[in-house]
């Protein structure tokens, strides 16, 4: 089959189409109107769907975010309260020990140089304790139900400081005890 044969077959098909073709005329623009209607409907539906999705997503996100924030704030508040209670009780114990040491010093030896030094140290520790107690009280009162992680870190630092101070006080008390023992035994 060559090009002429192909051309003949196409020409036959062309004649068949031509014999069946309707005469030239322009229909009213029904089709175009339908297309435009369809486009308007589709565009409006898209806008409504997009706006709805954005609204629902925003409301959902805000709600879940707010709930998460509340939960986190409650958790951190509980942690803060626990830490504060521990620190307060530790400070109370320290204060009690300090009073005992001071009373013991006052009875045993007035005027000794080493005892005076120990007493000065004890006063300094006492001032520090008061300041820490005041700070803890103020922070516990000011604790709000929001996420404040730096407060937790501060309380941990305070607890660590209290623990270290307790060791210092114990060491000083040992030293004072030794000095008292020496004074009592008349070695100085």
């Amino acid at each position, binding site marked *: *089959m060559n*090009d002429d044969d*192909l*051309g003949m*077959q*196409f*020409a*036959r*098909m*062309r004649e*068949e*189409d*031509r*014999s*069946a*073709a*309707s*005469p*030239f005329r*322009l*229909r009213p*623009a*029904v*089709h*175009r109107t*339908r*297309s435009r209607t*369809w486009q308007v409907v589709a565009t409006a539906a898209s806008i409504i769907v997009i706006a709805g999705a954005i609204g629902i997503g925003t409301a959902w996100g805000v709600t879940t975010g707010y709930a998460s924030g509340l939960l986190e704030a409650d958790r951190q508040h509980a942690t803060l309260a626990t830490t504060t209670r521990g620190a307060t009780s530790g400070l109370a114990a320290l204060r009690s020990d300090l009073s005992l040491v001071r009373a013991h010093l006052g009875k045993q030896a007035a005027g000794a140089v080493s005892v005076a030094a120990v007493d000065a140290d004890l006063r300094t520790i006492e001032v520090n304790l008061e300041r820490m107690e005041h700070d803890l009280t103020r922070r516990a009162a000011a604790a709000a139900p929001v996420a404040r992680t730096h407060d937790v870190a501060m309380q941990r630092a305070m607890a660590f400081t209290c623990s270290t101070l307790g060791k210092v006080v114990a060491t000083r008390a040992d030293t004072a005890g030794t000095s008292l023992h020496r004074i009592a035994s008349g070695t100085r």
Partner: protein
Amino acid sequence: MHDLYVELASHHQAALGWALACCRWDRSAAEDVLQAAYLTIIDGSARFSAQAPFRAFLFGVIRRTASAERRRRVLRRTVSLGLAADHAVDGDALAPIVRAESSTRLVDALQQLSARQREVLHLVFYSELTVADAATVMGVSVGSARVHYDRGKARLRQILGSER
């Protein structure tokens, strides 16, 4: 405007044949596409620039309109909003085309070709355009159209030869 009507009327039968090919010989779809293409030209959405023959310009508009209509139908079928009843063609316009057996075999064979091959063969053999004008209608380079033409012709010969 009157010149445009005359020009469209003079190419109407060839345009119908091309619209049939673009719509895979679906008569009602071809009539719709043809009317939409005429409206596109008359309302000025598509302008004839005289860089190619008017027939090539008209066939290009028909081809683009058919592609858009095909996509629209697929979308409507997918979405299924019940708005697919878009055939408003008169009863006499939908009269079936009586074809000889050889023409029926030719249509079947053309359906087995790729779209590009089918288009270029139809434009060259049926509408008697040059390969260059066919390339303009198809929106491809002349070289590409020639490759599609050669391969499509070979394939069409093979199909029609095997059926004999």
